[in-house]
Structure formats: structure tokens, C-alpha cells
């Protein structure tokens, strides 16, 4: 049965794989001479000990969640957007530069224009592989990956060249964003800004469109069996391209949020392959919106917590990567494990049936 939304088996598998991952992490900690209990306490402390940590954690979860959802909607129509990183970076640099250009105008003008610019550029950057896929059957995974590289270098060129910050200490970055345009912080000193409210609205909309609307239904048909969708009169090409564009627009907007909510300048650190982590979140969530939200939170806790663990317990933060990897492994095995359990159960039942029948038959004779 293909999952439509959360089900109990999935949640159980998720919890088990998390537990296994933490156990393996504990073993690694013990072998490398750390006390796992101390380390994990430091990890939780790193994520929750004060409002600033919680704020950073939520901001990171927001980024992962939006990236994950961008991937979810693509997968719903059967297209895999691996190019979100490039769409995000381009969105970020455009938004930052629009802010620089419009310095002195009202935030009511600059912020919407920056958001539109970021979405336009992200959407356009996703439109290219979308059209190539639909019209020329070019594999979108390859084009999006390659376009990522193009975007990285394009941004570097802009940030070192025409749009370079006047400050000589900043090697590659746009001008500073005027402070009137900064999103208000929800937690002072952290990265958490009002962007999370917009993100929550977007998350709800994605969930609603995918699960509850006629468009979402058509998208599902296209993703499940494009030939059938075409046969039934659905404009499959258009749906695939539009979905890809929306996915890119979301990524572009994430870039804008990073600049206006947290960094206040474009530099390469606005995204440290965040989209690829969002992509992993989406995969583990099996491209379902609600699990994407939950797993984004878990990963954000682990990642921000790992930094705290490094300072408090002296454990390298790379442990986070190990735990993340093990969770992905376990979740990938999840389907296989569940199928195996189901088969074993069927077999046992069939054996019982045969036994019951043969005993019944013997009784008659």
C-alpha cells in the first residue's frame, strides 16, 4: 500500500531507526572515549538550554522544512528537483541585491519586491530543467545537479564582481542589507525571525493543496502514472512544469528568508548545502508533508544540539552526520523490514490454514 499521509507503521519505523541511530552513535562515542550519556545531555542542552538555541533550532528546522516540501511537491508529479540549492542561492543573492538597490525606500516596497525577485529567479531556474524534461525528455536529476554548479559560480562571480560589498574584508558578498528591511527577530540574538510565520502558512498551503484539492489529486495521478493521466485528459506537461516552477519559487524564497531573517547580507554561508539536507528530510519523510515537518524538527535538534555538544562535552559535531546517516539507512530499510514482517505473517497464517484444513479433513475420514 502506498502511503498517503502518516500511518502508524511509518511512525514506529521512524522511532526505531532513531533509537538505533542514537545507540550506534553512543557506541561510537564510547569507543572514542566519551561518555555517551554526558554527550547526549550536552546535545539536548545545545538545542534547548536557552531561548537563543531554541530560536536557532527553529530557524534551521524552517529552512529544512521548506526545502523538504519543495522536494515533496516535485516528487508528487514524478519529478525530482535536486537543483534547490542553486535556486536557493540565486534567490538569496537577488533578494539581497534588490535590498541594496532599494535602500532608502520603504520596507513595504522593498520586501515584497525582494520576495518576488527571489521567487521569480528560483522559479525560472527550476523552469529550465522542467521544460527540458517535458519537451526533450532530459533527465531532470542530471540537469538540476549541473545547474547547481552553474548557480554557485554565478553567485560567486556576482558577489566578487559587480555586486561586491565595498568592505575589503568581505571577499565574496553583496552589500549589507539596510537594517530597515530586516525581518523582526522573534528571539533576540537568534536567527529566528518572523519568516517562520510565513513558512508555517506555506507549509499549511502545501499540505492542503496536495491532500485536499482537486489540483493535488491531478498532481498525484500525474506522478503515479503519467501515461494514464495523459490518457484521461489531464495536461500532464503543464502540471509538471508548473510544479517544478513552484518548487523553485519556494527554494528562492528560502534564500530570501536566510538573507532577510538571519544573515542580512548575501555571502556563500547563506546556505551550506541546506537544500540537500532538506532533500534527505523529504526522502526520509517519503515525500509526505506532515512527516517532513516532524523530521525537519528532529534534524534541526540534532544539528544545533551537536554544536552545543561540541562546546560543552568536547565531542566533534560531525557526530551529527553519523547519526543522520544511520537514520537514513534505517529508514531506507524500513520498507523492506515491513514487507518482510508482512510476508512472514502471511506465511504463518497460510500454514495455519492448511493445517486446520488437513486436520478438519482427517476428522471427516
Amino acid at each position, binding site marked *: 500500500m502506498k502511503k498517503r499521509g502518516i500511518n502508524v507503521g511509518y511512525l514506529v519505523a521512524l522511532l526505531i531507526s532513531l533509537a538505533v541511530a542514537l545507540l550506534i552513535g553512543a557506541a561510537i562515542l564510547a569507543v572514542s572515549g566519551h561518555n555517551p550519556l554526558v554527550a547526549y545531555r550536552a546535545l539536548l542542552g545545545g538545542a534547548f538550554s536557552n531561548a537563543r538555541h531554541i530560536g536557532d533550532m527553529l530557524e534551521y528546522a524552517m529552512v529544512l522544512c521548506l526545502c523538504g516540501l519543495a522536494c515533496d511537491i516535485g516528487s508528487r508529479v514524478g519529478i525530482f528537483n535536486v537543483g534547490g540549492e542553486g535556486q536557493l542561492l540565486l534567490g538569496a543573492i537577488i533578494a539581497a541585491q534588490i535590498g541594496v538597490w532599494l535602500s532608502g525606500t520603504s520596507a513595504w516596497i522593498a520586501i515584497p519586491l525582494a520576495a518576488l525577485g527571489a521567487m521569480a529567479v528560483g522559479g525560472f531556474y527550476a523552469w529550465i530543467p522542467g521544460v527540458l524534461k517535458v519537451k526533450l525528455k532530459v533527465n531532470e536529476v542530471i540537469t538540476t545537479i549541473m545547474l547547481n554548479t552553474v548557480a554557485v559560480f554565478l553567485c560567486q562571480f556576482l558577489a566578487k564582481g559587480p555586486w561586491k560589498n565595498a568592505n575589503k574584508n568581505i571577499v565574496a558578498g553583496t552589500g549589507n542589507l539596510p537594517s530597515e528591511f530586516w525581518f523582526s527577530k522573534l528571539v533576540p540574538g537568534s536567527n529566528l525571525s518572523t519568516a517562520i510565520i510565513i513558512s508555517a502558512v506555506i507549509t499549511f498551503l502545501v499540505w492542503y493543496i496536495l491532500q485536499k*484539492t482537486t489540483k493535488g489529486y491531478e498532481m498525484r495521478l500525474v506522478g*503515479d502514472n503519467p501515461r*494514464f493521466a495523459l*490518457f484521461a485528459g489531464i495536461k500532464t506537461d503543464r502540471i509538471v512544469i508548473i510544479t517544478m516552477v513552484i518548487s523553485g519559487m519556494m527554494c528562492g524564497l528560502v534564500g530570501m528568508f536566510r538573507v532577510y531573517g538571519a544573515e542580512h547580507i548575501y555571502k556563500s554561508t547563506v546556505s551550506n548545502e541546506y537544500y540537500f539536507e532538506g532533500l534527505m528530510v523529504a526522502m526520509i519523510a517519503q515525500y509526505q508533508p506532515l512527516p517532513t515537518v516532524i523530521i525537519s524538527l528532529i534534524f534541526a535538534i540534532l544539528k544545533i544540539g551537536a554544536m552545543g555538544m561540541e562546546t560543552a562535552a568536547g565531542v566533534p559535531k560531525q557526530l551529527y552526520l553519523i547519526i543522520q546517516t544511520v537514520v537514513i539507512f534505517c529508514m531506507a530499510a524500513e520498507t523492506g523490514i515491513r514487507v518482510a514482517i508482512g510476508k512472514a505473517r502471511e506465511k504463518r*497464517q497460510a500454514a495455519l490454514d492448511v493445517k486446520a484444513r488437513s486436520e478438519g479433513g482427517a476428522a471427516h475420514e
Partner: protein
Amino acid sequence: MTDEIRFEHISMEFPGVLANDDISLSIKNGEVFALVGENGAGKSTLMNILYGINTPTAGTLYVRGEKVTTFSPKAAIDRGIGMVHQHFMLVPSFTVAQNIVLGREPKSAGVLFDNRKAEKLTRELVEEYGLEVDPSAEVRDISVGLQQRVEILKTLYRGADILILDEPTAVLTPQETDELFEVIRRIVREKQMTVIIITHKLNEVMAISDRVGVMRQGKLIGVEETKNVNEKILASMMVGRPVLFDHLEKTGEAGDVAIRVEDLYVADNRGLPAVRGVSLNVRKGEVLGIAAIEGNGQSELLEAITGLRKINRGKVSVCGVDVTNKTPGEIRAMGLSHVPEDRLSTGVDKVASVADNLLVGRQKEARFNLMGFHQRRSTVERYAEELYQKFDIRGAGIHTEVGSMSGGNMQKVVVAREFTFDTPVLVISQPTRGVDIGAMEFFHTRIIEKRNEGAAILLSSADLDEVFRLSDRIITLYEGRITGEFRADAITKEEIGFYMTGSREGGEA
């Protein structure tokens, strides 16, 4: 006659399915035994046990009184059992002789393949059994009927005296079927071979077999002397209830032309010409049937008409509107519904529920939408429930995943959806492929109902009986060209076979 094969209390169980349930059956030396049953009745499973592909979970198999302990095709071949599968296992680029000796090649100098000897051995076999075929012809150049003959010769070369034929006539023309039966009779009469035929065509059972065994849901329902039964009795045994192959009442006069195809050229998936200059008309209130052997352009023709395949030249109009190279959605809007040839790849979304599959095509209707975008699930489900009842779909309800249903029920989902559009034009391909007799009856009745209500129906089917039963007019296609056009009541199946194989052309009746 002695018992050649004896199954004693054989059961075969796959996870969750009891494919063979306590089967005891003897097959005598030198007889033609027909094994009939619906899809999934367990016929092939039972024969796969005999051929060593399956190891039974319970029971004993005796071949010539000897208990079989090792189950493998190799051991079965050593016991003299040969099987010709429905899909041939031949190497197209090898010659007939090379295919026949494959696996037991004659060698010269101990290592080299001796082609001359292979052809000599083949010629000897051909003469011994009277199965005429050219040993040096490449398999890809010979007809399907001859390929089947090569398969039979292959088993004979390996010393088979028990021959299992799995649905041997599915791909044959009536003439080729007759020739096959001639061959079977000869090898049984002259060589004392035992032949087992798996089939679901009851007229063939009557024509060729000495005895017939009927299977249903894994059980052997009965074994009869063929001369003591008729098709009706066998059909009832297969289905488990009386099957009424009543005469289908066709009423009304043919009206205006609803599908017009003019000089159509279409290519297949490899880009080779598949449809070459086909012109046809279908009127309202008539069924035009296409009789053709698989791969003669009928699939491409229907796909081109319904917008699933590009038209290279020519014109298609539906209800007077030119729809050449329009999208399927645009053509549907002109009043066409389509039951596609391959329902799994084209007709359904396997992982979606029955309800979602029934809704497709109507999802934008106002009653299923709140404010124009919110899908009203309760209305959708009520609608699905209604069709579910009306079309007698059997399964675990409208929330069942379509991919988990039987072929017949899946087809009911497709037909329910497409027929409910109530369009003036219906294009129907393989309506009953892989569907059991009970459901077949249901589909035929529905199709004729539509015809009598005035729909123009273009039908393509690999089952010639079906084409004859439903059509008012029949066209024959051979290599993408129309070779004849006939009134269904003015020609026989045997005659039409000549046009299907291209040996006659320009037929009209």
C-alpha cells in the same frame, strides 16, 4: 492405455494463496488431455509442477509409475516431458536448426558447433514427425505458427514423449490452429505421444481433446470424456454457475458517421511504419471490429485515433471535428471514451484507490468541487460507491488499491469509468483480455447495450470469437493495411483468417 502421469493429492501453496488444492488426476498414455479453467484457477501451476518449475508443497507425482523426487525442468526433460510456453523462448537471429539443438549442440572436433549436422538432425526430425519447416531459415523471418512448430520440434529433439502446450492457439490464426491440431493428432496417433493442452477456448477443447479436466480456484472440479460434455457444461463448471451465452440482441439502424479515418500513417515505438494508409468509418449505432493478428498495426491505429500516438499523415475526425494530432483530453472533449489495450499502463493508476480511479476525467465537475478547488471527498465517495454497485465490481470496496484487484475487476473499473461518460463514440481495445468467462459475458452485454443506445464503437480484440460476436462490420488488418471489409454475418472465421495473414486482399462482403 496406461497411466502416463498420476498426480496424487498434489497441493501447491504460495504465500497467502493455495494455487493447487489436493489434486488427484491421471493422464493416460496416448491421449490428448485438455486442462481448462479461468485465470488463476491453477492450471499453469499444476503443469509447472509436472515440468519441474514448481515443487509441490504436498502430495506425490508419478510419471510412468515412477515417483518423482527431484523437481527441476532438467529432470523433467530427462523424463521425456516437454513444454511449449505461451511466450516462445527462441533466439530470433538463430536459424531453425540452431534453435532446435540449442543446449545439446552437435559438435565437430569436440568443440566446434557443427551446423551441417544440426540441420541434418533437424531434417530427420521434420521428416519423422511430418512437421514441415525449413531448418536453415532464421527464426525471425518465419511466421508465429512456424515458430510454435520449432518449439515443438525442440522438445521432440530432447526426446519428449509427453508434450505440454500452454495456451497454444492464443497467437495463431484459425488456419494455423487447424494445422497445429493436425500435428497434435498425428504425433499422438503415430508416435503414441501424450499431449496436455492448457486453454480457455472451449471450442478448441471440443475439437482436439479426448478428455478434459476443469479447474476452479485451485481445485479440480471434474474430469470428463470430451464426447460426453459440451461447451455450455464446461463453461458452467469453470465459472461455478450457469453461464448463458445468450444471443446478444442488436437493435436499431446505423446512423451518421462518428469516426472518420482518412489515409492514416502512424509509426510504432521504433519509428517503423505500423499503420500504412488506413481509411475507415464508424457509424452511430454500429460496432466496427478489427480482426488482426497481434502486431499488425491495430494498437497503433487506436492509439493514433485517441491521441496517444503521433499521426504522420492522414486525418482523423470524431463527430465531424478534425482531431488529428490533438491531445487525448481534447479528443475526449469531442465525445470519445477509450478502453485502452493495456489497462495497467494506460487505463488505471494502480496505487490509487478504486474511488480515485473512477473519478478520473470528472474531477473538475462542479459537484466534486467546493469553491472550485476543494475536493469534496464525500461526494466523490458517494459517486464511486454508486458505480461500484452498478458495474458489479467485486473487491474490498472503493478504498481498495486498484493494483491489488483481479484483472476482471480492474477492467470493470475502467469500463465503469469510460462507459459512464456516455459519449457518442467508444474506442475499445481488448475488452476481455485476461478476464474470466463470467465477466466476459458482462462486458459483452454492456458493449451491445451501448451500441443499441446509438454509440459508435470501434473494437479491437485478439479474440476472434469476440470480434465476431460483437461486430456489425469487420475489417482485417495485415501489416498496417486494410485487407478486407466484411459484414460480420457474411463471412466465416476460417475465411477471414486468409485476410488476417495477408494471403488474400481486397475482400469485401
